[in-house]
């Protein structure tokens, strides 16, 4: 069974540029999460989807971040414009119930 797939694995951009991350969850997993992981920290939730619906986006900085999950499968997280402080790892995770999260390998963003 394929795991959670994320791309790109690494991205380097100039500040004020846009960037997008893509996530394909494990087949059959209705719940999808985007987490932010700063250096030396644990993951922090940005947004959670149940199928197509964003059910918890309270921690998503909506002035520059946006996300979508069309058709309840793949998801895209976008930052526009990126700032220096956005340099971090963006992790996608999925689950089929409340008892375990399955993580992708993450997308490491460097903003110069």
């Amino acid at each position, binding site marked *: 069974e394929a795991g959670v797939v994320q791309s790109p694995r690494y991205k380097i951009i100039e500040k004020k540029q846009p960037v997008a991350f893509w996530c394909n969850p494990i087949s059959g997993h209705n719940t999808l999460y985007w987490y932010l992981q700063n250096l*030396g920290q644990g993951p922090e939730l940005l947004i*959670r989807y149940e199928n197509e619906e964003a059910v918890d986006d309270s921690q998503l900085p909506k002035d520059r971040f946006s996300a979508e999950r069309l058709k309840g499968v793949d998801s895209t997280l976008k930052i526009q414009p990126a700032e220096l402080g956005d340099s971090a790892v963006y992790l996608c995770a999925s689950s089929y119930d409340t008892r375990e999260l*399955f993580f992708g390998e*993450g997308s*490491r963003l460097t903003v110069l």
Partner: protein
Amino acid sequence: AQSVTQLDSQVPVFEEAPVELRCNYSSSVSVYLFWYVQYPNQGLQLLLKYLSGSTLVKGINGFEAEFNKSQTSFHLRKPSVHISDTAEYFCAVKGSGTYKYIFGTGTRLKVLA
């Protein structure tokens, strides 16, 4: 609301020695508890989880953890570590009826030859 405290940011230990990584949590409701491992430039991988039942939980790679409700702890242990265990370890808590996972700040385990 739940919170997690990992008391040690770094733990150096010699190969084949035992190790314990500490985790304390707070919650007003019943919880699920997890330990995840993160190798460099990779995502998080589940080591073990406590949902209910036996308070001693065994996981992958020889790790185990004990849920102690009175001390609100979920410490991770391994009797003999290997160089390959060098990684970042995260404790996480989730209210049993919720979807919100709260992660600790991580403990960096460094196994020395």
